């Protein structure tokens, strides 16, 4: 399980670094509202990843389920919040949510080229 915990830690760290960097860049290039929308999405993505992580850790416990509407519901709530709030924007929130995928890709590439 040490491998798994190390992977989790690396991905969390990568997400935080990417999100912080992107927040600053978006804040300067666009507006604070856009940057905050991105940050909201990135926070939601982190929460989503944590929920996925806990589901995967519970595999083999017997009565626990892997799926469930909670993770996808989190995304739906996040997007509806961005749409209905008026000050937040949809696309930055969505891209913020996708930061977790970027972090996974970065980690996979690092592992791939680290092994060579």
């Amino acid at each position: 399980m040490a491998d798994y915990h190390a992977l989790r830690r690396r991905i969390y760290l990568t997400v935080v670094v990417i999100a912080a960097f992107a927040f600053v860049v978006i804040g300067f290039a666009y507006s604070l509202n856009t940057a905050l929308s991105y940050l909201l999405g990135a926070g939601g993505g982190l929460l989503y990843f944590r929920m996925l992580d806990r589901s995967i850790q519970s595999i083999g416990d017997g009565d626990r389920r892997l799926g469930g509407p909670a993770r996808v519901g989190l995304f739906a709530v996040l997007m509806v919040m961005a749409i209905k709030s008026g000050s937040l924007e949809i696309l930055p929130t969505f891209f913020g949510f996708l930061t977790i995928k970027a972090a996974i890709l970065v980690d996979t590439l690092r592992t791939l080229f680290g092994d060579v």
Partner: protein
Amino acid sequence: MNDITAAASVIAAALAVGLAAIGPGIGQGNAASKAAEGIARQPEAEGKIRGTLLLSLAFMESLTIYGLLVSIVLLFANPFRG
């Protein structure tokens, strides 16, 4: 928004999220069952198996999320409303 556009948007939203959930649902079920089998056979590789499962499930679930995004946009920020 006229009635036909509203009805078409609701049907499209339902189809988008429903169809987008089928493939990832089957894929996630297969991946999780194989991972559980793998952990049972090789408990010493548990960390690697769970890690691979985490990454693959994250990418599989993004397909459902794309469908959900389309349906949310159709329902709450419809670009075709007149």
